């Protein structure tokens, strides 16, 4: 299991770096897919099988495809017709602030979770990570956030219908 952790972790980091470094947007998206798959592998090693597969379906299978679709449509050529009007202002400074904040938060979480200390092996409750357990949690403990998410998605759907519906076909 520890081997999975290291390999998937390295892949996730490599994918994340690829997203930033790649010159072509399509390459960035493909790197992001690698990153997402590596995360799914990490979930698997944590016995969260359902979570891992949902991660693959939703992120790699749906969201990344929409990204790819739009980017491929807009940059069909290697040299896009329209060049962007230069870089956005203050990206570098904001990036540094975000990176430092992220690093501090991550360190705090890692320290409070006792990173590096040997973990007592606790037996997982039976059915942990299964769709049944997942669904029960979702519809009991987390019912409020579940319904709120549904509400947000509904708003998005209505928004799309309103935006598209204005055009008389």
């Amino acid at each position, binding site marked *: 299991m520890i081997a999975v952790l290291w390999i998937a972790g390295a892949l996730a980091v490599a994918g994340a770096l690829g997203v930033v470094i790649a010159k072509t947007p399509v390459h960035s998206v493909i790197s992001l897919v690698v990153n997402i798959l590596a995360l799914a592998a990490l979930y698997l090693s944590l016995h969260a099988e359902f979570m891992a597969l949902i991660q693959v379906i939703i992120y790699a299978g749906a969201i990344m495809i929409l990204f790819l679709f739009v980017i*491929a449509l807009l940059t069909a050529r290697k040299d896009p017709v329209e060049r962007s009007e230069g870089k956005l202002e203050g990206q570098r400074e904001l990036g540094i602030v975000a990176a430092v904040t992220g690093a501090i938060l991550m360190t705090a979480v890692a320290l409070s979770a006792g990173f590096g200390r040997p973990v007592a092996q606790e037996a997982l409750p039976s059915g942990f990570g299964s769709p049944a357990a997942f669904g029960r949690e979702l519809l009991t403990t987390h019912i409020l956030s579940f319904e709120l998410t549904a509400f947000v998605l509904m708003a998005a759907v209505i928004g799309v219908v309103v935006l598209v519906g204005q055009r008389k076909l």
Partner: protein
Amino acid sequence: MDMFTAMHNGLVQMGVPLWLANLVPPLVKSLILLLFILLNCMFLIWMERKVAGHMQRRMGPMRTGPHGIIQSLADVIKLISKEDIIPSGVDRWVFVLAPIVAFAPAFAVFMVIPFGPTLIAQDLNIALIFIAALTSFVVISFLMAGWSSNNKWSLLGAMRSTAQLISYEVPLVISVVAVALLAGSLSLQEIVEAQRQSFWYILVQPLGFLVFLTASLAELNRSPFDLSEAEQELVAGYNTEYSGMRWALLYLTEYANLITFAAIASTLFFGGWSGPVLPPVVWFLIKVYFFIFLVMWIRWTLPRIRVDQLMELGWKGLLPLSLVNLAFTGVYVLIR
């Protein structure tokens, strides 16, 4: 599987390190599955040409072997010995990776397909979601192939198939969910078991099966939904620039997906490997080949539909139907 446990134990006794011995049984299983896919795909390509031929009142391949049975083998040798061409304008990495991204998931899906009561590489309790997750990679590979080819037709083909796959994946998954509800499980083996104890689910899910069949044809990019490779308009669609073994890999993926579809259709709706007298694996193959023939039959009978008809059918026809079916199934499961 006892054979593999025995193999594992034997290796450990011979002094092979444990991690290596742990790796051997999955590798052997994968090799067997790979061989199964390769041989069946070769046979299917021959079968497709024969079916097409006879439906058009001609013979199909006749020269290589009796009734052209080893024609596919000859084709494979030809494809292997072909020059490996990568057109100069393509995005090299993505171009080379796309066929692999297409084939790997199509191959991995076979891991959870039950060929018989014990004949299954790995019985996952979330097999249905596993299949849905892996098959979604087809779209990524199409887009990768189409975009990296740096060619209008390829890109248009990829765009069409993406729009099509995204639209039809929704009713497909919803019709599968209804079956999972009936069986009370997402494991393919348990779904077969549930059907053995009651009846084939086609009896209570005729609507679900029709939605599943139609959506699957679209997912397979098969006629009447083969807009993404409409020869008259797009040369060959996303794989226009591919040749030699890379093209063969894309082609192989198509037929592997066809077998997957047939296997899932017979498992979900027609009792999978269950059946009287004959051994389970024979029953399974009979059902699988029946569905493969059905798909070929449809392909060589129906004309291609238009893009707007395709979208209307998907969003206004199949999606509401699958939702109605799911709702009724839910009520049935509650009062059962």
